[in-house]
């Protein structure tokens, strides 16, 4: 006798576990707030929750702006995760993509208006791809652990980009890159008027498109089938005749390209952000790891994780009004990620709950 019962799908369970983790993280944040200044904790906490909705549409624009690059680095890390690789090199890929975009944005002014920004983004995409490809090749050909090569590539990318900025696109007065041509800025398509903000442009849509494409590639195509097989069992994929070396290289290349695109989107956003000649790794790459984990490496999950982090980062910035340091948001996010580790436990609880209820249901049926 078979009967369809209500059952949470795997995605549903993941989602439920995420919600529990988020609630736990926020609760912890609230405790920290209460602990440091009970007097203003509640309003500040409310402000964090309200996040991007505090300042009407311009707050939302801010959320999209902050979310866009980390959605892409999150996708990059998550995509590699799915194929069994840990791309800790998103930072270097992001930086090289950013540089390529700025370089093209500054130098290739011969390109016509509608094309310039697209070419610049393509440049970012390709530069990131190259930066991701190196660890991929080393892993496939020489069996070098991609974690260590990615870390090395982060530093090499940072120093190399510093050299290149000074060589090609340097504003010596400010020790940063010169502004890109207006034609290289990502079109705002009227969104700036709508949102009353200069931060917004169509890049959030580009990020969403990237999310959808990655989702389709992973789940609907033979290529995704191969990549995931390689990630889950390299030996079985080899047995199956899948060219796992090619797939490792491709996977890292695509991951790199996504990070690079993230860099391009940020530096062509027209928000007055310039490449700094600074010996500091781009934090967006490491935030990508958080986003990927929060989104459980699922492209759709990553989209929402990125938006969520953008949302509470805006909230965290605003709580400065209540004399709290914005670092509290990092504490909250890290707690949420940590509680993501409880996901297995939470899922077990769901399962047990479901089993209990179905058992009692069966018992009733028996009577």
């Amino acid at each position: 006798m078979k009967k369809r019962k209500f059952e949470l799908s795997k995605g549903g369970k993941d989602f439920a576990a995420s919600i529990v983790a988020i609630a736990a993280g926020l609760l912890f944040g609230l405790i920290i707030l209460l602990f440091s200044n009970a007097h203003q904790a509640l309003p500040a906490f409310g402000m964090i929750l309200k996040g991007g909705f505090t300042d009407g549409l311009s707050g939302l624009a801010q959320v999209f702006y902050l979310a866009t690059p980390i959605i892409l680095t999150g996708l990059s890390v998550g995509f590699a995760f799915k194929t069994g690789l840990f791309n800790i090199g998103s930072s270097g890929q992001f930086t090289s993509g950013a540089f390529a975009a700025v370089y093209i944005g500054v130098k290739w002014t011969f390109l016509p208006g509608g094309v310039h920004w697209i070419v610049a983004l393509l440049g970012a995409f390709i530069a990131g791809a190259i930066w991701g490809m190196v660890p991929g090749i080393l892993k496939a050909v020489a069996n070098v652990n991609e974690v260590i090569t990615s870390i090395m590539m982060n530093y090499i990318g940072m120093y190399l980009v510093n050299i290149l900025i000074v060589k090609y696109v340097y504003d010596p007065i400010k020790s940063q890159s010169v502004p890109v041509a207006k034609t290289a800025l990502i079109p705002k398509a009227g969104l700036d008027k709508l949102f009353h903000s200069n931060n917004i442009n169509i890049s959030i849509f580009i990020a969403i498109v990237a999310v959808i494409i990655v989702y389709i590639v992973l789940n609907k195509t033979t290529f995704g089938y191969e990549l995931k097989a390689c990630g889950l069992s390299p030996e079985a994929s080899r047995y199956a005749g899948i060219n796992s070396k090619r797939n490792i290289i491709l996977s890292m290349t695509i991951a790199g390209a996504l990070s690079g695109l993230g860099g391009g989107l940020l530096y062509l956003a027209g928000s007055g952000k310039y490449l700094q000649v600074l010996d500091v790794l781009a934090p967006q790459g490491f935030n990508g790891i958080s986003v990927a984990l929060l989104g459980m490496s699922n492209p759709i999950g990553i989209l929402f994780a990125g938006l969520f982090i953008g949302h509470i980062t805006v909230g965290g910035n605003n709580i400065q009004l209540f004399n709290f340091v914005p670092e509290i948001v990092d504490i909250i996010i890290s707690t949420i990620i940590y509680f993501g580790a409880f996901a297995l436990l939470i899922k077990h609880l769901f399962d047990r709950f479901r089993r209990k209820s179905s058992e009692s249901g069966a018992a009733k049926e028996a009577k």
Partner: protein
Amino acid sequence: MEYVIEMNHITKEFGNFKALDDVTLCVKKGEVHALLGENGAGKSTLMSVLFGLYQAEKGEIKINGKAVKINNPNDANNLNIGMVHQHFKLVHNFTVLESIVLGRETVKGGFLKMDEARKKVVELSEHYKLKIDPDSYISDITVGMQQRVEILKMLYCDNEILIFDEPTAVLTPQEIDELMKIMKNLVDEGKSIIFISHKLNEIKAVANRCTVLRKGKYIGTIDVESATRETMSEMMVGRKVNFNLDKAEEKLGDVTLKVENLSVASANSHKKVVNDVSFEVRRGEIVCIAGIDGNGQSELVYGISGLMPVQSGKVSINGKDITKDSIRRRYLAGMAHIPEDRHKHGLVLDYTLQQNAVLQTYFEPRFQRNGFIRFDAIREYAKKLIGQYDIRSSQEENSVTRGMSGGNQQKVIIARELDRDPDIVLAVQPTRGLDVGATEYIHKQLIKQRDNGKAVLLVSLELDEVMEVSDRILVMYEGEIVADLDPKAVTVQELGLYMSGSKRNIAQ
């Protein structure tokens, strides 16, 4: 009656699944007590309960008449119970000596005192004639020696009750004989042994009494001497088992697989593990590669299937040279491969049954369009295989293969490989660890393949299988083919001589 072990009314559940249901096992002092049952009957689980790896939900255990609680292997150890596990529990980069002392180290102020341990191990190995090299690394020694290490682990801590969980599955006939002798020695010294096996003749040879389990339930305990193979197997399976395969006369066709002067180097060194091997397999025959484990059979197959690079020589299928081809091209040329290690190679364990069903064919037009997967086609295909090969699992085509039973996992692989209508099937130990019923089924499938005019290359360590299934036997010894035999004209004993290198009928 004095029992060393009494396990009464043991019930063990995994989630909702009752692996053991009111099982009783009583072992007398100084006997070899066999435990018989199909795959999944609960033999290993029962032993794990005795050994403290699992805790039973119900039931009691008495050792020497005293009720005991065994919560972990330490407790078992203190009760002088030792176990050789079905899947060896040895650390690949430990030395033999380290492996033996792990968990019972002699120390002074936390520092290991290996010299004392070494002395004791050498003494034990001499006393029981368990030949080992204490300084070899586990990854470098043969399966047979690994087993001896496992046995020494038990003896090292002076255990009185010894559990052997399917120790013979990986051994050669000679090694099995040796093991039987060792077991008898041990019993003569007053130790008691629980011996798990699917193989009735082994039980006949060594055991005093035998307890049979079926699907987690206790069926009965019998005296081995007075029981026949037929009664025992009936108790085990619950029905009559046909031990004789009906095989039609072979109808030989063209050469399908041709191997010429093939040499393969070992993965870690440049030593040739397959040395200048040549042979052919024709349509309509099952050729079996026999040999003691570790004589290059695995590497030979890896060389043919492309999982390892060849050093020199040539492999062709249906006259087409495939030596340099990728693995995928080899499949397209008509090869199928039932791999030795089904978990490592045969399946992507975290993929579902239907995803695994198209592991080598997902890119064919019937399963994809413009790079997009045709999910419906794959589902239909998987359903067809499930029906045709009687694959059982909880969620049908959506079952994740990791959660499926070993026998059914193997069925998925066999269905997938045979359904591609290959010209040559490489089958490496396709029945390892499977019970009589499943084994019978797989043998029938291979014979069907042969009868349909296909070629089969079977690699097996089990002599019964070799003798029963094959049309021609090639014996491999130290990387070379040393004999080409007709199974009807050779005895098991003779075969054993060829396998151990004392005889050859092919010139060097």
